[in-house]
């Protein structure tokens, strides 16, 4: 369909631009694809902020926002309008260019990994071979937004927050990478569509979270830590360092950080669903479950994982910094390495039931 659209567009512009028509066509189709991906994503993100406040409100026996629009549904729009109208204050002696670039880098890193996420068979922006590696590389770029913001703000609290956050992200990336290596071993492919197809079976027991249950938990918890979400949110611990790396940001510059954090949450949820929970596959491969298109199953899984994110935030107190580091380095990394060996031996034995 994409190729056909490109060819049609190239045909239209042929008389105007000659040989360059195909460039313009490719550009237009790619931009259209990106918009078709990012726009729903941003709407989801806006609704997620609303859902967060309502869900946590319900857990804590409060009401949450319910004034703007029906049941407070337009609250995110009101928030965005408010932030848009606010002034962006640049601190004295701040590094101006980097101060403005930092939120953009955050958002860029949060959005770029979505290029390889498959939504249903064939529905993916870039079906690259090394999709898993691309995801790892793209998510590792997010730390730059944090570091640059903390340093460019010329503020002690921001610098402390960015140091904490960067150390945390770098530490948990290792455990995450090892967890993904086991997925790679089981699926035998780096392509995310192939990983999902490799989990196809009669029921949800063929999904990778069954043989890789510890890795599933490690990956998800590391994902929570990577996104600096509670209970791992020491980077913005309000009681100690005000708001961490984005303490000096106001108005829409702050909003961009906020968007990046929530898009990252949705990304971790989508990756967990893709890698461990069978992506677009239905939980049972027979009639009533297969009627629903695969993309809805993916959305259900993402929504459930996002709910767990919010549930965590409402339930657990914040980790202390040394405890976070211990969990990452002394618990998760050894656990992933041990499970890596176990999966390798298990795959060689006749007890392995998950293909390849």
């Amino acid at each position, binding site marked *: 369909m994409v190729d056909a659209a490109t060819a049609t567009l190239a045909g239209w512009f042929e008389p105007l631009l000659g040989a360059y028509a195909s460039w313009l066509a490719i550009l237009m189709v790619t931009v259209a694809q990106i918009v078709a991906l990012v726009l729903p994503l941003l709407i989801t993100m806006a609704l997620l902020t609303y859902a967060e406040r309502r869900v946590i409100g319900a857990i804590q026996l409060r009401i949450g926002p319910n004034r703007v629009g029906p049941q407070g549904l337009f609250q995110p729009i009101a928030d965005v309008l408010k932030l848009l109208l606010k002034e962006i204050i640049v601190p004295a002696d701040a590094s101006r260019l980097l101060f403005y670039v930092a939120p953009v880098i955050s958002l860029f890193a949060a959005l770029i990994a979505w290029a390889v996420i498959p939504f249903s068979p064939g529905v993916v922006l870039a079906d690259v071979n*090394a999709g898993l*590696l691309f995801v790892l*590389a793209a998510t590792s770029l997010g730390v730059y937004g944090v570091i*640059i913001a903390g340093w460019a703000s010329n503020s002690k609290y921001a*610098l402390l927050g960015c140091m904490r956050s960067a*150390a945390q992200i*770098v530490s948990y990336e290792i455990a995450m990478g090892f967890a993904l290596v086991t997925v790679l071993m089981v699926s035998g492919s780096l392509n995310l569509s192939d990983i999902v197809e490799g989990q196809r079976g009669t029921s949800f027991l063929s999904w990778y979270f069954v043989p890789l249950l510890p890795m599933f938990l490690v990956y998800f918890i590391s994902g929570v830590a990577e996104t600096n979400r509670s209970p791992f949110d020491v980077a913005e611990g309000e009681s100690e360092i005000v708001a961490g790396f984005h303490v000096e940001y106001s108005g829409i510059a702050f909003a961009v950080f906020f968007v990046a954090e929530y898009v990252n949450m949705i990304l971790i949820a989508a990756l967990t669903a893709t890698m461990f929970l069978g992506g677009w596959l239905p939980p049972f491969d027979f009639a009533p479950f297969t009627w629903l298109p695969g993309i809805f199953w993916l959305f259900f899984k993402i929504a459930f994982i996002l709910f767990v994110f919010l549930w965590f935030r409402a339930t657990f107190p914040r980790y202390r910094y040394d405890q976070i580091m*211990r969990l990452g380095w002394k618990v998760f990394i050894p656990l992933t390495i041990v499970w890596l060996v176990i999966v390798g031996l298990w795959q060689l034995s006749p007890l392995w039931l998950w293909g390849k």
Partner: protein
Amino acid sequence: MPELQGILFYLFAALLLAAGAGVVTMRNPVHCALLLVVAFVAAAVLWLLLGAEFLAIVLVLVYVGAVMVLFLFVVMMLDINFDRLREGFWNYLPVGLVVAAGLGVQMYLVANSGLFDLQAHPNPKSYAAGESNTAELGRILYTDYLLAFEAAAVILLVAIVAAIVLTLRRRKENKSIDPAVQVAVDPAQRVRVLQIEAVKPVESAAGEDAGKPGKQSDGEGGS
């Protein structure tokens, strides 16, 4: 489309050179480190254009995602008067120029030796679209070059262990408690739950009438 690739190549090659020049000329070391990040990303794009997707992604993953982050960490924490570092620029300039000239001559000789000619290195064999660069590299690393690969891995492991051993020391005045010990604490050993009676049993001091309420409170305390 070869034309588009050519344009992208020159664009990112120019970016790489500009960023590289910035790394050595910028005043602020944090800006230098960030420009080095830009240079790495531009180099990754060049590799991607050559079809080396695994190398490109790993460059971003390892160097940009991990090494440069730690590098930036250190540079940000440094508190050095950089104007003092720059003192004596003109004194050292002649020596620097001689070293630079030596390096330049060496690079010229190597590049012109014929080993890097276009004839010596014809275009790499182009692979089909489905061919996985990563799988091929893995196959070669774990078969043909297994010994060298393992040796490199062992050397890296030794380096890691050495670095940890060299920096691991416990300060005596440090009173922090190991989180593992804290987490493993058993509440039964720390907290004693006492059952405090809500109502004290009244001593039956006067008369026979006080006997009844006294017995009642005893019963409550026992339950």
